């Protein structure tokens, strides 16, 4: 690697990061511009009023609460389903496994709007078939958004748990059974503790995927709003910088989460490093003493 090419690499990387950040920074900046249109030029003076407008916007708060409720419901469904599916698929092989796997990952590759539409059509016709059409359960609403989202988010959880299962030693379960553990104990004490990292990662991914989701939710939501749908309808209806204020808050939230994660990771790495150093020193001291 010549220095010139390494420099080109650094340069391109920086350029790319700027490209990613500039639109977001401009959007954030427009939240403080005292102009009725969301823009940074012409700059008409600094103001907090879009934040005041945002906090007074009840529809937005309602949409935010809905988003969080749906995300929690998605986590509560997708995590058990994905984990169970990974355990089941791990116990079969050959053709059955390939077929099951194909069906399970298909929703990840399917477009969101098809998932949303098919979910609405299915529950609607199910309601008509059993003669309960019009009952709220079969009409579009946030519960259908949850079902639609779970159909593909469970696949992410399944893939994570399945990957973790590959490093699981089944001999541990055999040992526990031989020592007289009950089936429930084997699951709770042996298998689940091994899977916890994957399950936790799966839950986090499920939560954020759900909050982010637009396509499935748009078709299944009925008359309810979630945050992304609300932002979409605001953008379409002609907007005030209230949305920019909201965008800024969400971005700050993201950055804070990222920073917390990063500092924790660094601290953990430092602790591991310190332990290794200590172990090495102890070993050296022992060798020197002996």
């Amino acid at each position, binding site marked *: *690697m010549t220095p010139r*090419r*390494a420099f080109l*690499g650094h340069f*391109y*990387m920086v350029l*790319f*990061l700027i490209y*990613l*950040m500039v*639109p*977001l920074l*401009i*959007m954030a900046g427009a939240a403080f511009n005292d102009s009725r249109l969301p823009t940074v*030029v012409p700059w008409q003076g600094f103001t907090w009023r879009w934040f005041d407008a945002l906090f007074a916007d009840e529809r937005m708060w309602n949409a935010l609460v809905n988003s969080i409720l749906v995300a929690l419901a998605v986590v509560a469904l997708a995590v*058990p*389903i994905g984990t*169970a*599916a990974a*355990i*089941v698929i791990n*116990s079969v092989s050959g053709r059955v496994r390939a077929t099951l796997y*194909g*069906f*399970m*990952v298909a929703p990840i*590759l*399917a*477009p*969101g*709007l*098809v998932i949303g*539409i*098919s979910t609405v*059509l*299915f529950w609607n016709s199910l309601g008509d078939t059993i003669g309960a059409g019009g009952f709220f359960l079969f009409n579009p609403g946030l519960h259908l958004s949850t079902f*639609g989202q*779970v*159909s593909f988010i*469970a696949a992410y959880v399944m*893939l994570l748990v399945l990957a973790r299962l590959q490093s699981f030693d089944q001999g541990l*379960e055999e040992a526990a*059974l031989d020592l007289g553990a*009950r*089936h*429930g104990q084997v699951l709770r004490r042996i298998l689940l503790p091994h899977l916890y990292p994957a399950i936790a990662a799966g839950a986090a991914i499920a939560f954020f995927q759900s909050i982010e989701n*637009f*396509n499935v939710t*748009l*078709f299944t939501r009925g008359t309810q709003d979630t945050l*992304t749908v609300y*932002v*979409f309808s605001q*953008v*379409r209806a002609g907007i005030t910088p209230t*949305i920019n204020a909201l*965008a800024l808050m969400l*971005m700050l939230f993201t950055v804070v989460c*990222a920073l917390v994660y990063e500092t924790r*990771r660094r601290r953990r790495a430092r602790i591991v490093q310190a332990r290794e150093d200590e172990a090495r020193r102890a070993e050296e001291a022992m060798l020197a003493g002996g």
Partner: protein
Amino acid sequence: MHDLIRRYGATLTGMFILLTAFWLLALIILPNFALFEQSFRPWLPALEVGGPRDVYSFDNYRGFFDQAMATTIFGIPVTISTHLLAFLDTVFYSVVVTAICLALTYPLAYYLAKIASPQSLPTILLLLFIPLWVSEALRAFAWYILLTFNGPLNQLLVGVGAVERGIRWQQGVWTDYDAIVVVLIYCYVLFMLLPVYTAIQSLDTNQIEASEDLGAPWWKTHLRVVLPHAKPGIASGCVMVFMLSAGSLLVPTVVGSTSAIWFPQSIFTQFNDAQNWPKGAAFSMIFLLLCIVFVFAVMRLFRVKLSDIAK
């Protein structure tokens, strides 16, 4: 299966299977079957549903080819249905988006995997992830602000004297779809970068050095060593970016011009404005078929397995 029962007992195994079955049947297979069934039904007022006119037909699929209009494709005048045109445009420009994303991110992925110093890597990855966590709606909105007629981009260009008057970006400069393509790239470029990066990272650096020591020029090293190794990652990235772009409803609605129709917008119009669910279902089936064809094409082209793509 017997192994499961032996280890977890009949009750727990039953629960695992029940959960899996609920997912596969109620959330995946039956909804898609409902979509399939509905797409052959006529569009009738509620009272006539189940009546003598409620019979299966291909009418909805025929509707896909209705409403012919005259236009030009690459300068050749043709008469084509509006829906088919929207469909073809969507496929074409999604392929363009995918190709540009790959061209943009391959050098970056290589840089991150093999050149960037290990100390700065976590920070760079973190910076890359932040835009990914900002919702798609807001990323599209950020570009809406950037591209508006009196927006910062035009002001800058006029300010430095590059153009005399502002440009109506959203109406398109070269084609009707310019703005959509640019914003789709911005929104989904990271879905290409991450799988390609992961793939290149698993390549043993010794192989690159061996290739260089044996006198291969840099482009040959990439063509013969790095690219073949990165193939699964590239396949995965291409599928993700194509699917997300072709399936995006947000971006075309937020930054698209009135003369550029993205196929998901056609589907949404059938559902939302026309309330013609059967026709919307037929359009969705066509769209789903496209996606299946695309995934299989990529699998054949790159000779990869489904488990390489869906990760």
